[in-house]
């Protein structure tokens, strides 16, 4: 009776990330089954649902490198009560932000026009393609982020600990061993 508690609805996505954080989530291994007793997935690479419905929790990997990332992030913010930035890229911009000291115009020109072996190149301009932002930004530069889960990627144990705290109503804290400073 009381055990028939409503499952928490969770959405996840990877923006300008490498899916490494999602792989780390899968690394909680058999604890996934335990997790699935408590949550059900909405939009996520695990379900292939394309758009987010109303959710309790959104977990986002990766920062913002293009216009589509911004749209997806806003969809998540609108749909999720609590939003978590997972991993170094979501928290700080991470590896993709290494391009921030370069001019995006030069990047596109080098990649599509002047790079080695390119003949008659041009910069793709199909409206279907999202345009890159001039700089890569962390998520909290655009929407409110409720919790940050650092790490590159955060270890599976850290993700597990973090979700358990969150699901139990405790403010998530990653103690010694689960968080690394440098």
């Amino acid at each position, binding site marked *: 009776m009381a055990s028939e508690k409503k499952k928490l609805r969770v959405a996840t996505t990877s923006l300008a990330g490498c899916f490494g954080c999602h792989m780390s989530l899968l690394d909680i291994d058999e604890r996934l089954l335990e997790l699935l007793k408590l949550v059900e997935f909405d939009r996520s690479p695990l379900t292939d649902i394309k758009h987010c419905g109303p959710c309790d929790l959104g977990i986002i990997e990766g920062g913002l490198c293009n216009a589509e990332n911004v749209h997806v992030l806003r969809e998540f913010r609108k749909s999720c009560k609590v939003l978590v930035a997972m991993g170094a890229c979501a928290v700080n911009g991470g590896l993709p932000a290494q391009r921030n000291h370069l*001019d995006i115009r030069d990047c596109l020109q080098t990649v599509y026009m002047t790079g080695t072996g390119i003949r008659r190149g041009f910069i793709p301009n199909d409206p279907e393609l999202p345009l890159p932002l001039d700089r890569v930004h962390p998520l909290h530069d*655009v929407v409110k982020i409720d919790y940050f889960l650092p790490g590159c990627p955060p270890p599976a144990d850290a993700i597990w600990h973090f979700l358990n705290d969150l699901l139990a109503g405790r403010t998530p804290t990653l103690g010694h061993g689960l968080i690394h400073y440098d």
Partner: protein
Amino acid sequence: MSRDLSAILARHQHDPLRLVQILRDVVEEHGFISPGTITTLAERLSLPRGRVEGVAGFYAFFPTENAGRYRVLFSDNITDRMAGSVELRQRMLEAFQVRDGEVSRDGLVSIGTTSCTGLCDQGPAMLVNGRAIPRLTRARIGSISAMIHGQAPLDTWPANLFDIHTHIERKDLLLSTPLAAGAAIDAAIARGPDATVAQVKASNLRGRGGAGFTTGVKWEMCRAAPGEAHYVVCNADEGEPGTFKDRVLLSDYADLVFEGMTVAAFAVGAKRGFLYLRAEYPFLLAPLEATLAERRKAGLLGKSIRGVADFDFDIEIHVGAGAYVCGEESALIESLEGKRGIPRNRPPYPVTSGYLQQPTVVNNVETLAKAAFVVMHGADWLRVRGTGRSAGTKVLSVSGDVARPGIYELPFGATVREVLDLCGATDVQAVQVGGPSGMLLSRSEQHRRIMFEDVPSAGAFMVFDDSRDILQVLENFASFFAHESCGFCTPCRVGTALQRRMLSALAKGYGTRRDLKDLARVAKVMKASSHCGLGATAGNAALDALEKFKPAFEKRLGTLEVMPTFDLDRSLAPAREVTGRDDDEAHLSHEEEE
């Protein structure tokens, strides 16, 4: 190339301790330090290549890529900006069709910015290939641009361009007492080293570099510390933006400073001394060397000074290479040893383990000058001025919105109001005392006193009138700290960058209430957990401003709890430009569309 290197290396006796000086010479002769040069230097000095590369990469004035035949660096202190440096730089960038910080296509020139060059009383200022040019105007920029276009060698530029003026507006104890060279040394010899130390202690002279440690105690500890050799270092790495009093002391009172160093050497038993001169003051080098030569000739430096058998002492000038953090005494010592200027763990302090791990006294320029007079005239000479815990006077560098910028020597305990009246400041909105790492005072705090008990100061006194935007001031300070953080410890390296980003967003109107909280939090983390004083003080101005100028922030806040910290649509503009797109998907709205 390698023959030139041989000459440079020979000049420095192939001494790895002189690596910073060697690299200075390389830049002077070649314009920059190439990877090949790094390899050769490492081999010839028997140092790991990474060590040489690390040092070359650390200092702002060591370009490791071609920086153009003329490297132009505009001083970027807030006082330079207030005097119009941004517009002048823009003109010059346009004249040479070059982007900020980049080299022109023909390799002729690069134009960028550098931290305060200590010419705040005659700004805006710039450095061209390391040489300082003050009082920039459109006309000056025009003729400088023309000479660069014409590729005129720097030595043929009109000499008056490089004239540095001295503005001493008020003299007190220190600046008005005459010195007969050697008199303080004679007084010390007559009294003996122990009594000399005791006298400095009795005067309650405290360090004028900002920290305020009692000089006599420092000397006593150094004298008592066992070691193979003792050293005296004069810290003339005057990097705190808005500070230029040491520049004036070294240009007009050099004898006095060297006298103070020699007395200190006698007191602690040192045979060698260093004057660590900041790179921004190259115009002081030749006159200082000349003063040293005169003093050697007069028997005030060298062997058996004044006929005292084992009183041997001489002074070398070591020139920095553009690193604020080297003003921290242990970082300064690292730099003296030819290393990156990263502050050491303390303790042990330099008095027991300084230069080459030997007992070392590091004193500020002004402290040494005062010590000379204390030894000469007795402890009471200093104590006739000042307050109980702040004996004597303080030399202030006044700049910003004042009628008479320059040097003001005032007794400790002088109020901010007195200084403002003296220098002719009206409609004062704020005063930054002690530079960006010091205290930001509001209009209502003019009764506060310059002294260790209330508002301590390393010497800077920058005035901002009602027309100035405090957020721009803070943004300038934040950029300074982010640029000057040595990167060694995370709280400072990351904290200063975060602070710069948040203040920049706030100043542009992209801030939220949450940012104000985060700004304070970052400042507190830096204060509590940084490795040295740079990080510990980097958030001071922001914390003061959040308390005293809160409406300046609030009127810039957006109405949303959270909003983008940058212009989303504009950030797509470069990609729109190269793809030629302008469809709906090529734009982003600033606020979330419903």
